[in-house]
Protein backbone atom coordinates (compact mmCIF):
# COMPACT_ATOMS: atom_id res chain seq x y z
CA UNK A 1 0.00 0.00 0.00
CA UNK A 2 2.80 2.35 0.96
CA UNK A 3 4.50 1.53 -2.27
CA UNK A 4 1.33 2.19 -4.17
CA UNK A 5 0.81 5.53 -2.41
CA UNK A 6 4.32 6.72 -3.08
CA UNK A 7 3.97 5.65 -6.66
CA UNK A 8 0.71 7.53 -6.86
CA UNK A 9 2.31 10.64 -5.35
CA UNK A 10 5.17 10.39 -7.76
CA UNK A 11 2.76 9.99 -10.62
CA UNK A 12 0.76 13.03 -9.51
CA UNK A 13 3.93 15.08 -9.17
CA UNK A 14 5.09 14.11 -12.61
CA UNK A 15 1.69 14.88 -13.94
CA UNK A 16 1.64 18.35 -12.46
CA UNK A 17 5.11 19.01 -13.88
CA UNK A 18 3.89 17.95 -17.25
CA UNK A 19 0.84 20.17 -17.07
CA UNK A 20 1.14 23.48 -18.83
CA UNK A 21 3.87 25.69 -17.47
CA UNK A 22 4.49 27.79 -20.48
CA UNK A 23 2.05 29.94 -22.31
CA UNK A 24 3.06 31.63 -25.50
CA UNK A 25 1.95 33.58 -28.50
CA UNK A 26 3.70 33.85 -31.82
CA UNK A 27 1.40 36.53 -33.13
CA UNK A 28 1.22 39.14 -30.45
CA UNK A 29 0.57 42.68 -31.62
CA UNK A 30 2.67 45.73 -30.86
CA UNK A 31 1.82 49.10 -32.35
CA UNK A 32 3.52 52.39 -31.85
CA UNK A 33 2.16 55.80 -32.40
CA UNK A 34 3.64 59.23 -32.48
CA UNK A 35 1.62 62.35 -33.04
CA UNK A 36 3.36 64.80 -35.32
CA UNK A 37 2.40 68.13 -36.88
CA UNK A 38 2.63 67.01 -40.51
CA UNK A 39 1.66 63.39 -40.29
CA UNK A 40 1.23 60.88 -37.53
CA UNK A 41 3.65 58.03 -37.44
CA UNK A 42 2.13 54.65 -36.82
CA UNK A 43 3.34 51.11 -37.29
CA UNK A 44 2.06 47.67 -36.43
CA UNK A 45 3.87 44.43 -35.74
CA UNK A 46 1.71 41.30 -35.54
CA UNK A 47 4.45 38.72 -35.23
CA UNK A 48 5.62 39.32 -31.68
CA UNK A 49 6.76 36.28 -29.72
CA UNK A 50 5.91 36.35 -26.03
CA UNK A 51 6.44 33.51 -23.55
CA UNK A 52 5.18 33.37 -19.97
CA UNK A 53 6.47 30.85 -17.48
CA UNK A 54 3.61 30.22 -15.05
CA UNK A 55 5.94 28.79 -12.39
CA UNK A 56 7.29 32.23 -11.54
CA UNK A 57 5.56 34.74 -13.79
CA UNK A 58 8.65 35.33 -15.89
CA UNK A 59 7.96 36.83 -19.27
CA UNK A 60 10.17 37.04 -22.35
CA UNK A 61 9.25 38.97 -25.47
CA UNK A 62 11.07 39.08 -28.81
CA UNK A 63 10.28 41.54 -31.55
CA UNK A 64 11.57 41.68 -35.10
CA UNK A 65 12.12 45.31 -36.07
CA UNK A 66 11.49 44.56 -39.75
CA UNK A 67 8.06 43.26 -38.87
CA UNK A 68 6.84 46.77 -38.10
CA UNK A 69 4.71 47.65 -41.10
CA UNK A 70 3.96 51.28 -41.92
CA UNK A 71 1.34 52.64 -44.21
CA UNK A 72 3.99 54.52 -46.15
CA UNK A 73 6.91 52.64 -47.67
CA UNK A 74 9.28 55.57 -47.22
CA UNK A 75 8.54 55.85 -43.52
CA UNK A 76 9.22 52.15 -43.10
CA UNK A 77 12.50 52.51 -44.96
CA UNK A 78 13.61 55.44 -42.82
CA UNK A 79 12.57 53.66 -39.65
CA UNK A 80 14.67 50.61 -40.50
CA UNK A 81 17.65 52.32 -42.07
CA UNK A 82 18.06 55.55 -40.16
CA UNK A 83 16.37 55.26 -36.81
CA UNK A 84 16.49 51.75 -35.36
CA UNK A 85 19.19 50.47 -37.77
CA UNK A 86 17.48 47.12 -38.01
CA UNK A 87 20.24 45.51 -40.06
CA UNK A 88 22.57 45.99 -37.10
CA UNK A 89 19.91 45.43 -34.43
CA UNK A 90 17.26 43.16 -35.95
CA UNK A 91 15.45 42.45 -32.67
CA UNK A 92 14.07 44.26 -29.69
CA UNK A 93 13.54 42.24 -26.53
CA UNK A 94 11.93 42.45 -23.15
CA UNK A 95 12.81 40.16 -20.26
CA UNK A 96 11.16 40.47 -16.90
CA UNK A 97 8.61 39.24 -14.44
CA UNK A 98 4.95 39.89 -13.85
CA UNK A 99 4.63 41.06 -10.23
CA UNK A 100 2.04 39.19 -8.14
CA UNK A 101 1.59 36.75 -10.98
CA UNK A 102 -0.31 34.25 -8.76
CA UNK A 103 -3.18 36.67 -8.24
CA UNK A 104 -4.07 37.07 -11.90
CA UNK A 105 -7.66 35.90 -12.34
CA UNK A 106 -10.06 35.51 -15.20
CA UNK A 107 -11.20 39.13 -14.94
CA UNK A 108 -8.74 41.56 -16.51
CA UNK A 109 -7.04 43.65 -13.85
CA UNK A 110 -4.00 45.83 -13.53
CA UNK A 111 -0.63 44.24 -12.93
CA UNK A 112 2.89 45.51 -13.14
CA UNK A 113 5.66 43.97 -15.17
CA UNK A 114 9.22 44.77 -14.23
CA UNK A 115 12.12 44.07 -16.47
CA UNK A 116 14.65 45.15 -19.03
CA UNK A 117 13.73 46.40 -22.45
CA UNK A 118 16.35 46.40 -25.22
CA UNK A 119 15.90 48.40 -28.40
CA UNK A 120 18.60 49.48 -30.82
CA UNK A 121 21.18 47.62 -28.71
CA UNK A 122 20.43 49.79 -25.66
CA UNK A 123 18.89 48.36 -22.51
CA UNK A 124 16.77 50.05 -19.91
CA UNK A 125 15.03 48.97 -16.73
CA UNK A 126 11.32 49.61 -16.98
CA UNK A 127 8.06 49.00 -15.16
CA UNK A 128 5.05 48.57 -17.41
CA UNK A 129 1.47 48.42 -16.29
CA UNK A 130 -1.02 46.31 -18.15
CA UNK A 131 -4.29 44.46 -17.91
CA UNK A 132 -3.83 40.75 -17.34
CA UNK A 133 -6.29 37.91 -17.20
CA UNK A 134 -5.78 34.18 -17.00
CA UNK A 135 -7.83 31.07 -17.68
CA UNK A 136 -6.53 27.54 -18.27
CA UNK A 137 -6.71 28.11 -22.01
CA UNK A 138 -5.17 31.57 -22.25
CA UNK A 139 -3.32 34.43 -20.60
CA UNK A 140 -4.19 37.82 -22.06
CA UNK A 141 -2.05 40.90 -21.61
CA UNK A 142 -2.88 44.33 -23.00
CA UNK A 143 -1.76 47.85 -22.28
CA UNK A 144 0.41 50.71 -23.37
CA UNK A 145 3.38 52.70 -22.17
CA UNK A 146 5.66 55.50 -23.30
CA UNK A 147 9.26 55.19 -24.36
CA UNK A 148 11.74 57.97 -24.89
CA UNK A 149 13.88 57.69 -28.01
CA UNK A 150 16.90 59.23 -26.25
CA UNK A 151 16.98 56.30 -23.82
CA UNK A 152 17.70 53.99 -26.71
CA UNK A 153 20.03 56.32 -28.57
CA UNK A 154 17.71 56.52 -31.53
CA UNK A 155 18.96 59.61 -33.33
CA UNK A 156 16.63 61.84 -35.24
CA UNK A 157 18.13 64.08 -37.93
CA UNK A 158 17.74 67.78 -37.10
CA UNK A 159 15.74 68.44 -40.28
CA UNK A 160 12.87 66.23 -39.20
CA UNK A 161 13.33 66.57 -35.44
CA UNK A 162 10.31 68.86 -35.24
CA UNK A 163 8.12 66.27 -36.90
CA UNK A 164 9.01 63.36 -34.69
CA UNK A 165 8.13 63.27 -31.04
CA UNK A 166 10.78 62.04 -28.62
CA UNK A 167 8.16 60.17 -26.69
CA UNK A 168 6.47 57.33 -28.48
CA UNK A 169 3.40 55.49 -27.31
CA UNK A 170 3.73 51.73 -27.53
CA UNK A 171 0.67 49.48 -27.23
CA UNK A 172 0.62 45.73 -26.84
CA UNK A 173 -1.94 43.00 -27.13
CA UNK A 174 -0.89 39.42 -26.41
CA UNK A 175 -3.04 36.34 -26.22
CA UNK A 176 -0.87 33.54 -24.84
CA UNK A 177 -1.91 29.95 -25.19
CA UNK A 178 -0.58 26.79 -23.53
CA UNK A 179 2.52 25.67 -25.33
CA UNK A 180 2.16 22.47 -27.28
CA UNK A 181 4.90 21.16 -29.40
Amino acid at each position, binding site marked *: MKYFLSLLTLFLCLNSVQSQERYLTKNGTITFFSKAPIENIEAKNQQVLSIIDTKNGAIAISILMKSFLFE*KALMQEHFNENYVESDKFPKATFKGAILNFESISNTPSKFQVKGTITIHGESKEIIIEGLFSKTPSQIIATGDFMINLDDFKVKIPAVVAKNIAKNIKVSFDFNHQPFQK
Partner: protein
Amino acid sequence: MKRFSKKAILITVLVYLLIGAFIAYKIANKSHLDISSTSPQISIEATKLIDEFVIDETTANTKYLDKLIAVNGTISSIKIKDEKGIISLKTDDDFGSILCHLSNEATKNISQLENGQSIQIKGICTGFLMDVILVRCEIIKP
Protein backbone atom coordinates in the same frame (compact mmCIF):
# COMPACT_ATOMS: atom_id res chain seq x y z
CA MET B 1 20.64 89.70 -75.81
CA LYS B 2 16.99 89.61 -75.26
CA ARG B 3 15.97 90.12 -71.67
CA PHE B 4 13.41 87.83 -70.24
CA SER B 5 10.31 89.47 -69.00
CA LYS B 6 9.51 89.20 -65.32
CA LYS B 7 6.49 87.16 -66.23
CA ALA B 8 8.51 84.59 -68.13
CA ILE B 9 10.93 84.18 -65.23
CA LEU B 10 8.08 83.85 -62.79
CA ILE B 11 6.42 81.17 -64.89
CA THR B 12 9.67 79.22 -65.26
CA VAL B 13 10.28 79.30 -61.51
CA LEU B 14 6.71 78.20 -60.85
CA VAL B 15 7.00 75.29 -63.28
CA TYR B 16 10.23 74.15 -61.60
CA LEU B 17 8.62 74.44 -58.19
CA LEU B 18 5.66 72.39 -59.35
CA ILE B 19 7.88 69.69 -60.82
CA GLY B 20 9.93 69.68 -57.60
CA ALA B 21 6.83 69.43 -55.45
CA PHE B 22 5.48 66.64 -57.62
CA ILE B 23 8.71 64.61 -57.34
CA ALA B 24 8.87 65.21 -53.59
CA TYR B 25 5.28 64.07 -53.28
CA LYS B 26 5.99 60.96 -55.33
CA ILE B 27 9.00 60.06 -53.20
CA ALA B 28 7.21 60.68 -49.93
CA ASN B 29 4.30 58.55 -51.03
CA LYS B 30 6.11 55.85 -52.93
CA SER B 31 4.20 52.65 -52.67
CA HIS B 32 5.19 49.38 -51.05
CA LEU B 33 6.57 46.68 -53.29
CA ASP B 34 3.70 45.01 -55.11
CA ILE B 35 4.25 41.42 -54.02
CA SER B 36 1.69 39.77 -56.28
CA SER B 37 3.27 41.10 -59.46
CA THR B 38 6.92 40.74 -58.41
CA SER B 39 8.81 37.53 -58.91
CA PRO B 40 10.70 36.29 -55.86
CA GLN B 41 14.47 36.80 -55.65
CA ILE B 42 15.03 33.47 -53.91
CA SER B 43 13.18 30.17 -53.95
CA ILE B 44 13.78 27.63 -51.17
CA GLU B 45 12.40 24.63 -49.25
CA ALA B 46 10.86 25.33 -45.81
CA THR B 47 13.24 23.01 -43.94
CA LYS B 48 16.30 24.36 -45.69
CA LEU B 49 15.27 27.91 -44.84
CA ILE B 50 14.83 27.31 -41.12
CA ASP B 51 18.05 25.28 -41.00
CA GLU B 52 20.01 28.21 -42.31
CA PHE B 53 18.57 30.44 -39.58
CA VAL B 54 19.16 27.87 -36.83
CA ILE B 55 22.76 27.27 -37.89
CA ASP B 56 23.81 30.88 -38.44
CA GLU B 57 21.21 33.54 -37.87
CA THR B 58 23.44 36.51 -38.71
CA THR B 59 24.40 35.14 -42.11
CA ALA B 60 20.83 34.11 -42.83
CA ASN B 61 19.66 37.60 -41.86
CA THR B 62 21.93 39.25 -44.41
CA LYS B 63 20.81 36.75 -47.00
CA TYR B 64 17.05 36.83 -46.49
CA LEU B 65 15.92 39.88 -44.51
CA ASP B 66 13.69 42.26 -46.44
CA LYS B 67 13.87 39.99 -49.49
CA LEU B 68 10.90 38.63 -51.34
CA ILE B 69 11.32 34.86 -51.11
CA ALA B 70 9.30 31.90 -52.31
CA VAL B 71 9.04 28.95 -49.93
CA ASN B 72 7.93 25.41 -50.75
CA GLY B 73 6.44 23.36 -47.96
CA THR B 74 3.56 21.46 -46.41
CA ILE B 75 0.86 23.27 -44.47
CA SER B 76 0.91 22.33 -40.78
CA SER B 77 -1.64 24.83 -39.54
CA ILE B 78 -4.03 27.45 -40.82
CA LYS B 79 -5.58 30.13 -38.70
CA ILE B 80 -7.11 33.56 -38.95
CA LYS B 81 -6.31 36.30 -36.47
CA ASP B 82 -7.68 39.83 -36.76
CA GLU B 83 -9.05 38.92 -40.18
CA LYS B 84 -5.61 37.97 -41.44
CA GLY B 85 -4.61 34.47 -42.41
CA ILE B 86 -1.55 32.83 -40.89
CA ILE B 87 -0.19 29.64 -42.41
CA SER B 88 2.61 27.58 -40.87
CA LEU B 89 4.76 25.38 -43.04
CA LYS B 90 6.16 22.18 -41.58
CA THR B 91 9.92 21.85 -41.12
CA ASP B 92 12.22 19.18 -39.70
CA ASP B 93 13.11 21.54 -36.86
CA ASP B 94 11.67 20.53 -33.45
CA PHE B 95 10.14 23.85 -32.53
CA GLY B 96 10.12 26.14 -35.48
CA SER B 97 8.11 26.43 -38.63
CA ILE B 98 7.83 28.98 -41.39
CA LEU B 99 5.10 31.38 -40.31
CA CYS B 100 3.48 33.06 -43.28
CA HIS B 101 1.27 36.05 -42.58
CA LEU B 102 -1.00 36.43 -45.59
CA SER B 103 -2.02 39.65 -47.29
CA ASN B 104 -5.68 40.67 -47.12
CA GLU B 105 -6.07 39.52 -50.70
CA ALA B 106 -4.58 36.06 -50.06
CA THR B 107 -6.63 35.65 -46.88
CA LYS B 108 -9.80 35.70 -48.96
CA ASN B 109 -8.81 32.39 -50.56
CA ILE B 110 -7.72 30.72 -47.35
CA SER B 111 -10.75 28.44 -47.15
CA GLN B 112 -9.49 26.54 -50.20
CA LEU B 113 -6.40 25.44 -48.30
CA GLU B 114 -6.09 22.51 -45.92
CA ASN B 115 -3.56 20.98 -43.55
CA GLY B 116 -1.10 18.59 -45.16
CA GLN B 117 -1.40 20.22 -48.55
CA SER B 118 1.82 21.20 -50.26
CA ILE B 119 2.06 24.81 -51.19
CA GLN B 120 4.36 27.51 -52.48
CA ILE B 121 4.11 30.91 -50.82
CA LYS B 122 5.97 34.12 -51.43
CA GLY B 123 6.45 36.90 -48.93
CA ILE B 124 8.92 39.30 -47.34
CA CYS B 125 11.18 37.71 -44.75
CA THR B 126 11.40 39.78 -41.55
CA GLY B 127 13.55 37.42 -39.50
CA PHE B 128 13.68 34.50 -37.08
CA LEU B 129 12.23 34.15 -33.59
CA MET B 130 11.05 30.60 -32.91
CA ASP B 131 9.95 30.50 -36.50
CA VAL B 132 11.09 32.14 -39.67
CA ILE B 133 8.60 34.90 -40.36
CA LEU B 134 7.28 36.02 -43.72
CA VAL B 135 4.86 38.93 -44.04
CA ARG B 136 2.53 40.20 -46.78
CA CYS B 137 2.45 36.71 -48.25
CA GLU B 138 0.79 35.66 -51.49
CA ILE B 139 0.08 32.09 -52.50
CA ILE B 140 1.88 31.05 -55.68
CA LYS B 141 0.42 27.57 -55.95
CA PRO B 142 -1.72 25.55 -55.81
